């Protein structure tokens, strides 16, 4: 089954590609919907900080990550469920960004590498299929 990748040319220009994601605490079904920006430059999926409180997430570990300006620092990491339509990825490792302006999710390579993806910049349409729902298979 294929899932739609949309283009948003209003929030940013040139437009960015995104999927509608829902994020929950790995232990319950209370999902928060958000735009999930496709980001092949992100090694790991990033969630906005406001979700941590809303979902009562507790960080079991730390990730060291650098930004585009190569400023490396520690980030709290969490395990969440990521849902896209009827597709659920359980226990996906994510980090938060301290920038409170972030509202959307960055879908990073620990999810993207589970996908076969097609993007058409001319028609602003895209789609993906997922060959696995286990984040461990994202190599």
């Amino acid at each position, binding site marked *: 089954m294929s899932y739609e990748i949309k283009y948003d040319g209003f929030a*940013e220009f040139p437009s960015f590609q995104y999927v509608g994601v829902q994020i929950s*605490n*790995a*232990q319950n079904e209370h999902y928060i919907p958000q735009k999930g920006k496709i*980001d092949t*430059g*992100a*090694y*790991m999926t*990033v969630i906005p900080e406001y979700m941590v409180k809303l979902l*009562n997430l*507790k*960080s*079991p*570990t*730390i*990730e*060291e*990550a*650098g*930004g*585009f300006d190569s400023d*490396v620092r*520690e980030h709290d990491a969490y*395990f969440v469920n990521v849902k896209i339509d009827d597709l659920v990825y359980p*226990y996906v*490792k994510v*980090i938060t*960004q301290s920038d409170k302006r972030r509202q959307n999710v*960055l879908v*990073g390579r620990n999810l993207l590498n589970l996908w076969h993806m097609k993007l058409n910049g001319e028609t602003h349409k895209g789609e993906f299929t997922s060959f696995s729902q286990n*984040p*461990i298979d994202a190599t």
Partner: protein
Amino acid sequence: MTEYKWKKPQKRTLIQIRKDEPKQWLQDFSILAFYDPDYSPSEIDQIKKMGTSVQTLWKDLPIEGSKISFAFKTSHDFKINKNRSAYNIFVNENLHDPKFQEKYVVFVNGQLEDVADNEVELVKQVHEKYGNIDMYVGKVSLEKTKGMIESPER
């Protein structure tokens, strides 16, 4: 050997600082030298001052063999840092033990809970056993990994 004692020793963890310990200790220490929320406002003020003085003292400490006590910023930080500190001690002591090398370990209440090849399995196990509690999962490895979130955004 120098030992710094604070007012309520039962609320604090004593760490031993050795020369060969990773830089992580310095980061932990700068985070941890604050206060526990159970203290009264006047005690917090006092400890804040002590935190400042301890951070200053840190720079002057003869690092090898020194001991220092510290308190924590919030109850969650206390728990996660208690587990993280236990992990750091564990890694220092077991880094070269083939039984643990390149394995993930999880700490709950400052105690080693389990060892596995996969960190997700460890987190799931702890959630199934105890629910949504504080824990720390880390890898026993000589190599430290770091990732990049490289895309600039408007």
